[in-house]
C-alpha cells in the first residue's frame, strides 16, 4: 500500500511535468483529471487503511539526502489527514475542470507536497513536503499578479511561509534524530523540549493561521483561484495542524508535562474569537470565509491543547474525547470550508463579484449552488444534524470536562477557554447567516448579479462531493470517529477508545450523548407538524405577492433591479457587532464628518477596523529588516582586501569551531 501511495506522489510530480507541455486545453484536462483520480485514490487507500488495518513498517526510498534515505509511513494520524487531502483534492480538482485550467504546474505539486508531508516518516521528508506545499501554494496565490493587492498578498504569504520554515527546521533539528521511530524512543527533555514547543507552535501556527500570525490568511486565500483557496483553507491549514500534532503530541511523546496544552489552548481561543469576529465584519465573501478558517483552526488547536492537558493529568477518556474533537473538526472543517470556497468561486464566476454588496438573490438564479451553500453554511454555523455541530459538540463537551483537571489554575484556564469557544461558535453562526443572507437571499444588488447563471456540471460535481460528505459525517459521526480511532491512539496513547456510542457520539462515560439520527427525526417531526398545522389553520391557499419593500417607496424607473440601498448592506449588518466588540478587539474606528450649516455637502460616516496584529507586527518587523539591510549594505562597501578577509575569517572561524567540537 505504501508503494502505491509513493507511486501516486510520483505520478503527481509527473503531472506537473506534463503541465509544462504547451498543449492548451487538453493539458488542463489531463492534469486536473489526473489530479482528481489520484486524489480519489489517496482517499480510498487512506479510508481502506483506517477501516481494515494500517500498513506495517516504513517504506525506505532508494534516494535521499547525504545522511540517510527518505522514508514514508502511514499511521492513523497521517491516514486521517490523507483521507481529507484526497477528498478535498478530488472535489477541488473536479471544480477546477469546469473553469479555465490555470496554475497547472503548481496544482499537482501542491497536492503532492501535502501528500509527502503527511506520509513522511522522518523529519527531512516532512519538511521537504511542507516547503514544497508552501512554495507551490505561493505560486497559486501569485497567479493573478497583475493586481497590486494580489502581489502584496503573495509577498506577505511568502514572508510567513519563510517564517514557518525557519522555525520548523530548528524545531525538528532539536529533536535529536531525524527518523520518527528514533525520536519516539528518545524524546527531547528540558530546555530542548520547551524550545521545540515554542518553535513548533510558531512554525506550524504561522502556516495554520493562528493569532497573531494570521495576517497573511485573509489576504492570501482570496487572492488564489477558488479551487486553490479551497485546498489551502481546507487542507493546507490542516497539514500545518497535523505537523503541530505530530511534533508536540506524537514525537515529543507522553513524557511532556501537561502545561504544554496551555499555550495551544490560549492561541486557539484567541484565533477562534478573532477569526469569528472578523468573519462578521468583512465585506468580501472569500475574505469572510478565510477569517472563518482562522476561527476553525483555532478550535482545532484548542482541542489539541485540551488533549495535551488531559493526557498530562492521566485522564485517558477525556484526552480521547478532546483528540476525537480535534480530528473530527479538522475533517469537518476541511470539507465544509472547501465547499464554501468552491461556492464562492461559483458565485464569483456567475455573478462577477465576491463583494457581498454586489450579490444578492442568487438562490433564484443558482438553486443548486444555493443548496450546496446552505449545507456548508449550516455546518459552519454548527447546526444539527450537520458535521460542524457534531465536532463542536465534542469540543464543548471536552471543555466542559475541564473541571476534572486537578489544579485550580488549569481549571480556570479551561473555563475561560469554554466561554471564549462558546462565544466564537455563536459569532461564527452569525457570520454564516450574514454571508448566506447577503449573497443568496433578497434581491440582486447589481445588474451583473441579476444576470447570474447556474454553475456548470463540473463545478456542481465539485461542490456535490463535499456537500454529501458533510451531510454523511453529520448524520454518522460515530462511524467517522471509529475511522479516526487509530489517529486518536497516535495522539493520546494506545489504550484510548474513541468517544463513540453505537452510531452516535458520547462524552463522559456515556453521561451525555448526541445521536444525530434522533435529532433529525425530532426536527423533521416538528417541521412536518408545523407545516400541517399551518396548512390546516390557514384560511386560503398560498399566494405569491409582490415583495414587501421594507417601508421604502418604489425605486425610480432608472433602477431596473430596484434601489440597492433599500436592502441591508454588508457594512450595515456588521455594524452592531463592530460597535460592540470591534472597538477593543479590532481597533475599530468610526467618524462622522458633519459639514457646517449652510454647506450643501452631505454628511459622511466613515467606519472601519484594523487588525491589531496588522498594526503591531509589521512595524517592528520592517524596522528589523531595514537594520539588517543597512548592515548588509555595509558589506557591499568593503574593499577588495576586506572581502577576501571576510571570507578568510569565516573559513578560519568555521575551522576553529570544528576544532572546538572535535576537542569536546
Amino acid at each position, binding site marked *: 500500500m505504501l508503494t502505491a501511495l509513493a507511486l501516486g506522489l510520483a505520478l503527481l510530480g509527473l503531472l506537473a511535468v506534463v503541465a509544462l507541455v504547451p498543449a492548451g486545453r487538453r493539458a488542463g484536462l489531463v492534469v486536473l483529471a489526473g489530479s482528481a483520480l489520484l486524489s480519489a485514490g489517496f482517499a480510498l487507500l487512506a479510508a481502506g487503511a483506517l477501516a481494515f488495518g494500517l500498513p506495517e513498517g516504513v517504506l525506505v526510498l532508494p534516494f535521499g539526502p547525504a545522511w540517510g534515505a527518505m522514508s514514508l509511513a502511514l499511521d492513523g494520524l497521517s491516514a486521517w489527514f490523507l483521507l481529507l487531502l484526497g477528498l478535498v483534492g478530488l472535489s477541488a480538482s473536479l471544480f477546477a475542470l469546469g473553469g479555465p485550467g490555470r496554475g497547472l504546474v503548481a496544482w499537482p505539486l501542491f497536492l503532492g507536497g501535502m501528500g509527502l508531508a503527511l506520509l513522511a516518516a522522518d523529519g527531512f521528508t516532512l519538511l521537504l513536503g511542507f516547503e514544497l506545499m508552501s512554495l507551490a501554494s505561493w505560486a497559486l496565490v501569485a497567479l493573478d499578479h497583475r493586481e497590486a493587492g494580489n502581489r502584496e498578498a503573495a509577498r506577505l504569504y511568502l514572508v510567513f511561509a519563510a517564517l514557518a520554515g525557519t522555525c520548523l527546521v530548528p524545531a525538528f533539528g532539536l529533536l535529536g534524530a531525524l527518523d520518527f521511530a528514533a525520536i519516539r524512543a528518545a524524546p527531547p527533555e528540558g530546555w530542548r523540549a520547551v524550545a521545540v514547543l515554542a518553535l513548533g507552535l510558531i512554525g506550524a501556527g504561522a502556516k495554520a493561521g493562528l493569532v497573531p500570525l494570521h495576517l497573511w490568511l485573509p489576504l492570501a486565500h482570496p487572492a488564489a483561484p477558488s479551487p486553490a483557496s479551497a485546498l489551502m483553507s481546507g487542507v493546507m491549514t490542516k497539514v500545518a495542524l497535523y505537523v503541530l500534532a505530530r511534533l508536540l503530541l506524537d514525537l515529543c511523546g507522553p513524557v511532556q508535562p501537561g502545561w504544554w496544552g496551555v499555550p495551544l489552548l490560549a492561541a486557539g481561543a484567541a484565533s477562534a474569537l478573532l477569526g469569528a469576529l472578523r468573519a462578521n465584519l468583512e465585506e468580501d465573501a472569500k475574505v469572510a470565509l478565510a477569517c472563518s478558517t482562522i476561527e476553525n483552526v483555532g478550535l482545532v488547536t484548542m482541542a489539541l491543547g485540551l488533549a495535551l492537558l488531559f493526557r498530562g493529568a492521566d485522564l485517558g477518556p477525556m484526552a480521547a474525547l478532546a483528540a476525537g474533537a480535534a480530528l473530527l473538526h479538522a475533517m469537518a472543517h476541511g470539507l465544509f470550508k472547501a465547499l464554501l470556497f468552491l461556492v464562492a468561486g461559483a458565485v464569483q464566476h456567475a455573478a462577477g463579484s465576491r463583494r457581498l454588496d454586489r450579490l444578492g438573490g442568487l438562490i433564484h438564479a443558482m438553486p443548486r449552488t444555493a443548496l450546496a451553500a446552505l449545507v456548508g453554511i449550516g455546518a459552519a454555523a454548527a447546526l444539527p444534524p450537520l458535521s460542524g455541530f457534531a465536532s463542536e459538540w465534542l469540543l464543548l463537551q471536552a471543555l466542559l470536562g475541564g473541571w476534572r483537571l486537578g489544579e485550580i489554575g488549569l481549571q480556570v484556564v479551561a473555563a475561560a477557554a469554554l466561554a471564549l469557544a462558546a462565544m466564537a461558535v455563536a459569532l461564527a453562526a452569525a457570520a454564516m447567516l450574514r454571508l448566506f443572507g447577503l449573497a443568496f437571499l433578497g434581491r440582486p444588488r447589481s445588474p451583473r448579479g441579476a444576470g447570474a447563471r447556474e454553475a456548470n456540471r463540473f463545478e456542481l460535481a465539485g461542490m456535490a462531493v463535499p456537500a454529501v460528505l458533510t451531510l454523511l459525517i453529520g448524520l454518522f459521526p460515530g462511524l467517522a470517529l471509529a475511522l479516526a480511532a487509530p489517529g486518536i491512539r497516535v495522539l493520546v496513547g494506545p489504550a484510548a477508545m474513541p468517544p463513540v456510542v453505537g452510531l452516535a457520539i458520547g462524552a463522559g462515560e456515556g453521561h451525555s450523548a448526541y445521536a444525530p439520527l434522533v435529532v433529525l427525526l425530532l426536527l423533521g417531526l416538528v417541521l412536518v407538524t408545523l407545516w400541517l398545522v399551518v396548512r390546516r389553520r390557514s384560511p386560503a391557499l398560498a399566494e405569491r405577492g409582490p415583495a414587501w419593500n421594507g417601508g421604502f417607496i418604489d425605486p425610480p424607473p432608472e433602477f431596473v433591479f430596484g434601489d440597492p440601498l433599500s436592502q441591508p448592506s454588508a457594512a450595515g449588518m456588521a455594524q452592531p457587532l463592530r460597535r460592540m466588540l470591534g472597538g477593543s478587539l479590532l481597533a475599530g474606528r468610526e467618524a462622522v464628518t458633519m459639514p457646517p450649516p449652510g454647506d450643501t455637502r452631505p454628511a459622511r460616516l466613515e467606519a472601519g477596523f484594523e487588525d491589531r496584529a496588522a498594526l503591531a507586527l509589521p512595524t517592528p518587523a520592517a524596522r528589523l529588516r531595514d537594520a539588517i539591510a543597512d548592515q548588509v549594505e555595509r558589506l557591499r*562597501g568593503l*574593499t*577588495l*582586501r576586506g572581502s*577576501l*578577509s571576510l571570507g*578568510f575569517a569565516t*573559513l*578560519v572561524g568555521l*575551522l*576553529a569551531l*570544528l*576544532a572546538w567540537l*572535535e*576537542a569536546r
Partner: protein
Amino acid sequence: MGFGQLPYDVAHLLGGGMLLLSFMLLYQRRVGAVVSVLAAQGGLLALAAAWQGFVQGAPQLYLTALIAAVAKAVCIPLALRWTIRRLALARGVDTALGIGPSLMAGVALVALAIMVALPVTSAAQALAREDLAMALSIVLLGMLMMITRRNAILQVVGLMSLENGLVLAAVGVAGMPLVVELSTAALVMLLLVVAGIFVFQMRERLDSLDIALLHPHRGEHE
C-alpha cells in the same frame, strides 16, 4: 606506515619543506625573491607528487608531477618574472600587515590546521593525516598572503601557493582520480591568464599595481 619508515619520512620531509617555503613567502621583502620561493615550492610539489606516485604505485601521479614541474616550477615563475621586468615594478613588498605579525598569524593558522585535520581524519592512515594537515596549513597561509599584501602580483602568488596546497592534499590521498589534478591545473592556467590581464589593464589605466586604487572604480564611491 609510521615514523621511521622511508615512504612516510620522505613524504613528510617534502610536505614540511613546502610548508617552510610558505613561511618564506610570508617574510620575503622583495618581489623577485617571492617568485623564486614560489618556484621552489612548485618544484617540491612535483617531487612530492612523484614520490606519492612511487609509493602508491599510481603512474598517473607522475603525470601530475610533470605538470607541476613544468607549470609551477618553471612556466608560471618565468611568466611572473617577465611581467615584473616588463612593467618595471618596484622590487619592494608593500604589506598591509607587518612581516612579524603575518608570521605569528601564520603559526596560529598552522596550529589551527593541525587541530582540525588530525582529529577529523583519525580513521585514515598516518601518512594521509599528516599530509592533510600540512596541505591545509599551506592553503591557509596562501590565503593569509592574499589578504596581507597590497601588490596584485603578490596576491597572484598567494593564490598559486594556495593551489599548491590543494594539489598536495589531492596527491596525498590514495585513489584520487587524475581528473581532479588536471582540472585544477587547467583552472590555475586560466586564473593566471585572468590575473595577467588584470595586472596589465591595471598598469595601463592606473600606472600602479596597488589595489587600493581600484576601490573608486567599482561604480560607487567609498
